[in-house]
């Protein structure tokens, strides 16, 4: 890379929705702009104010339908008056929106048009019931497939994938591994006060998650515990150069450095190459590791796009942590739990922390920042000295838009 790129000053709002004690769908709640402002101001405060910022990027997937709002870049001056008359842009790539927002920031640093870029990812989805939410989120797929798709479109897509996976590699163990995935997600979320499942007190999580799927009321091969929930939330982070670090007065040791990335697209009009594998994810991770010049065995922790537990499982195989068909064994061995060899989704991931779609990619970066700089609080995991890298995988649609980034603590 022509210059070093860092990320600092991560800030998450609460991921609000069912599961949080304070969530009441019948009462009026904060709107899109409040979430943007809360996250943005959090980051600005840490870097010393809006005066430090050269450019802004906001990632949002579907405010046009959830909130009937577009032109989101114009909310930056609402975050802070000091952002008036500064360049800003809104990016969109379905659930990989946050990842694309980060990439936009990274490229501004590399293009030397900015030393400090404020990046916010946001989605406020509880404005409608889940059944209508499903329609809005279906925009992440090809609209021409909507008519023949499931009422719950994306759960339907990943249910089909799960069905194909069960068929190819066996159902029982896969279901058990998905239940274990759920358990890890909730247990990690319980350690993170902003997580949607922070208040979850269920005792036997795996037994709960083994509930038999019911295609009559939901989808054939997944139950609700296999799915991320409907979330309202925002995350913000500053993407900076070395010059930017100095400007903000933050030492590199409190930053993470971007070591490499894989950003790519697959044809949205085509069905999956292999329904039992995430082929684009595999390519994106391969590219991220290659550009960082590391192997997957040097990764100490990862933030994975587990919009569905089956996606988390398949992602383990796409990264290469497990051979195809062996993802379940890998998860059941405990390798992905917080005490395992590759702690995954240490603040709960999409299933545990929440999935405010446009914010998720940024939230992943914030969690890696906290973990690699030792600021994850109760959720902190040990990062081994010989495996100092953090990996993120942010996926938009059904393995269509991919952003995978490799990070290391700043030096």
């Amino acid at each position, binding site marked *: 890379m022509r210059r070093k790129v860092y990320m600092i000053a991560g800030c998450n709002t609460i991921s609000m929705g069912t599961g949080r004690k304070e969530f009441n769908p019948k009462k009026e709640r904060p709107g899109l702009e409040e979430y943007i402002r809360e996250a943005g101001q959090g980051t600005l405060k840490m870097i010393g104010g809006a005066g430090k910022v050269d450019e802004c990027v906001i990632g949002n997937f579907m405010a046009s339908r959830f909130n009937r709002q577009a032109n989101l870049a114009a909310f930056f001056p609402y975050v802070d008056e000091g952002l008036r008359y500064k360049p800003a842009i809104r990016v969109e790539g379905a659930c990989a929106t946050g990842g694309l927002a980060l990439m936009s920031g990274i490229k501004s640093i590399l293009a030397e048009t900015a030393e400090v870029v404020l990046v916010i990812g946001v989605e406020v989805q509880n404005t409608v019931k889940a*059944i*209508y939410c499903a329609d809005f989120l279906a925009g992440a797929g090809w609209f021409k497939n*909507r008519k023949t798709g499931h009422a*719950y479109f994306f759960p339907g897509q990943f249910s089909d994938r799960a069905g194909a996976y069960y068929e190819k590699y066996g159902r029982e163990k896969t279901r058990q591994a998905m239940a274990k995935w759920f358990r890890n997600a909730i247990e990690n979320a319980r350690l993170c006060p902003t997580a949607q499942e922070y208040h979850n007190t269920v005792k036997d999580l795996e037994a709960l998650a083994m509930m038999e799927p019911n295609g009559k009321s*939901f989808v054939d091969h997944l139950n609700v515990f296999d799915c991320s929930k409907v979330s309202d939330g925002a995350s913000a982070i500053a993407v900076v150069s070395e010059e930017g670090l100095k400007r903000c007065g933050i030492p590199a040791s409190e930053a993470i450095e971007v070591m490499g990335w894989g950003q790519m697209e697959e044809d949205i009009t085509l069905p999956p190459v292999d329904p039992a594998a995430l082929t684009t994810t595999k390519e994106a991770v391969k590219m991220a590791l290659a550009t960082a010049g590391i192997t997957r065995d040097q990764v100490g922790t990862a933030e994975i796009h587990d919009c569905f537990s089956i996606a988390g499982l398949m992602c383990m195989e796409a990264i290469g942590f497990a051979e195809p068909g062996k993802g379940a064994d890998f998860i059941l061995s405990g390798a992905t739990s917080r005490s395992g060899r590759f702690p995954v989704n240490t603040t709960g991931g999409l299933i545990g922390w929440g999935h405010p779609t446009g914010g998720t990619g940024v939230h992943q970066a914030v969690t890696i920042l906290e973990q690699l700089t030792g600021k994850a609080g109760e959720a902190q995991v040990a990062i081994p000295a010989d495996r100092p890298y953090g990996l993120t995988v942010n996926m938009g649609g059904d393995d269509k838009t991919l952003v995978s980034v490799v990070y290391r603590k700043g030096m």
Partner: protein
Amino acid sequence: MTYEERLQHVSVLGAAGKMGSGILLLTAVEMADLSLKPENRGKPFVLNAIDVSDEALSGVLKYLKAQVLKMAEKKVVALRKAYAGRADLIDNNEIIDQYIFDVLSLVRPSTRMEAAFDSRLVFEAIKEDQELKISIFAKIAASNPHLPWFFTNTSSIPITKLDEGAGLGGRIIGFHFYNPPAVQKLVEVIKAKQTLPEVEEFALAYAKSLRKIVVPSHDVAGFIGNGHFMRDILHAATEVEKLGKEFSFVEAVYAMNRISQDLLVRPMGIFQLVDYVGVDVCSFIMSVMDHHLKEETLHCPLLDRLLSQGVKGGQYSDGSQKDGILKYEKGRPVAIYDPGTRVYVPIGDIQPAVDAKLGNLPVPPAWKAVVGNKAKEEILREYFSQLKAASGLGAELARFYATRSCEIGKQLVSSGVAGNENDVNTVLLTGFFHAYGPVNNYL
């Protein structure tokens, strides 16, 4: 005539009422679902919503729309399949909106009874008045060339009396929904002496399609549900009277209401339930039962006295509770009517003293925590064993109440109203939402 053909032309009498609008809703949805089947495409389905006034009918479509929306949201997976052939309907909300339209477009509100003259099936949920029902049935039967079947929602009048009075020749059956029909799972099915087998067969098929739980009751006034409920009221009223030596009227009502709710682990106290149904309705049902039941007197001076002072209870059209024996704020009882002074006495004023007189009581589990609980059998057994061992007035009244409720249940079986004890328990569990059946061995 097939099941579908029978349901192609239907009328609901009393469609704007509490029960009638629920029956209208369930029937409209059933008919719409039939009309969406490929083999029924193009066939007309007509549902007349008949009631006496335009004012009352004006709210019915609004009610239907709100309810069908809720139902459609729950079954959108199936609806997407039903509308798979409609290329113009893509998003869930488009499909749901179309379904609501399709249900509502079957419904023809009318104030004219003549609308029922073309119907093959007539649901009746009008006032609990034997002569009125007979005269309407007779008129429709005389002018309707299709030999329509009559499904009456009466909760008290013997079906045989209606059949014979209107000369229906067995084309009638008691099909008693519980309030609200869209929620309560129970339907009591009551055959008259002459009820035709095909009428019963259809009734059971219709109930099954609505996913209702059917309990057969013999054709004895009040049937099983009110057979238990009315005698339960009489027990509570008698106890209020007996407590009169030591308690004021308001205190005694508070005590029996609390005992019947908290200590018997029921969803509401007996006097709140009377208000929910309506003091006037309860009194009326009792008089119908009293008229038909020769060996027993069912008469409640307490209800008569309150009624004479205009205390009626019942519900507003939005389903919220009107003041009756109790006064309500946000659906919760806050005061009790004193017929002596004709004012409501705040419960807070008398509660501490009455509770003290009731003595130390075992802590009952909340009804809500028990009703859907898999371990409810153990929870209830444990609680009732504590109640059995407890001393003091409150525990004594609670035990007596439960014992009497059990006796009433057994009496319904021995007098031939219910086929067995299990049927009695099912009625209380599914029609009254009790957490346990009255016929039990807890005490």
